[in-house]
């Protein structure tokens, strides 16, 4: 079994940003993502996740390093000033690198 290094980018943001974020994923060339509603607390206070529009979502994207870099860059430039949001990158290993 061969595993291949890949990046996992995790984004936690306001649900309002959902469409904009998934659109961005397409633009930077990420294929596929996973997404679910979460509640959170951060610089903008608590977000208790009872009204979909005021809740948070967590988006997880496995992708190649260069795409991850580009994704984070555009998040920093275009999204951080606009939305309550956290984004981070970590290292994972996958089996079918061609998939991402």
């Amino acid at each position, binding site marked *: 079994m061969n595993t291949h290094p890949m990046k996992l980018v995790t984004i936690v943001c*306001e649900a*309002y940003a959902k469409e*904009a974020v998934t659109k961005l994923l397409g633009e930077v060339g990420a294929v596929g993502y996973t997404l679910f*509603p979460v509640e959170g607390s951060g610089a903008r206070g608590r977000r*208790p*996740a*009872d*009204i*979909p*529009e*005021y*809740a948070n979502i967590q988006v997880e994207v496995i992708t190649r390093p260069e795409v991850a870099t580009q994704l984070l860059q555009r998040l920093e*430039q*275009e999204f951080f*000033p*606009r*939305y309550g949001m956290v984004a981070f990158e970590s290292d994972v290993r996958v089996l079918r690198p061609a998939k991402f």
Partner: protein
Amino acid sequence: MLEAIQANLLSPAVLFFALGLVAALLRSELKFPEPLYAALTIYLLVAIGFKGGVAIAEAGLGRIWLPGLAAIVLGCVIPLWTYPVLRFGGRLPAVDAAAIAAHYGSVSAVTFIAATNYLKSIGQPYESYAIAFLAVMESPAILVGVVLGKLATSRSGSSAIPLRTVVHEALFGRSIFLLLGALVIGAICGPAGMDKVGPFFVTPFQGVLALFLLEMGIVAGRRLEDLRKVGPFLLAFGIVVPMVNGAIGVALGQVTGLELGGATLLGVLAASASYIAAPAAIRLSLPEANPTLYLTASLAVTFPFNIALGIPLYFAIARHLYA
């Protein structure tokens, strides 16, 4: 008028709203799970849309188009007159003034539904087709507000979202789609359809609304602590402007041929401020605007004010005009 207010304050719906406020203020862990909120929203929008559609089928478009047009015009005009008030009276940055103006021109479906509930509970008949005004009034003010904001900020930099997206969002948002869809279905089915789905969409309606307002009280209550941040001007704005708009709406309803009940509802729509559709659109198109300002004003000031005092007030105004 005092008795009108009292009747409202002592209704289950308003008391459950107050209970929600109390829960939020006591920092109780109480909240509704998100899918329950979504389910109640879907139910309320579909129920009121369907009922409105049946009413339209019975009334005919002939009686609706004029007040409907008035509603749209009202939606466009409110941001135009409130913008300078915010900008120069309140000394707010242009983009914030535009954002808040958009919220007050747009409407709150829950406030409208609570108002129909109030009229029903005091035995005041109303034109059910007034729901059509709710449907057409959500978007225009948002568009006007966004344009105002864009003009003001001019340097709509790299990250500008095309106006097309905003228009699409404003016109085809989930709630408008549900409302209009149910309205069309109601209009097609007419009273015969109502017989079938009435036991679900009409009979338990008041109880469902009471439960829903409990959650809305919690949501509004959480924002109360931001009141300090918005300052006295916005607080006064959030109470006075709805009263002005409410009076204008009622008068416009009378002029365009609505009855007492319908004019009250048009007043309520004019007076209400959006806190779901408008924030979504403004966040997208005027990201520089400060959400604390527009959300707190609309959700923590105007919404509770309307639910508790505004609705019976606009009704009292209407009764005065129609006397």
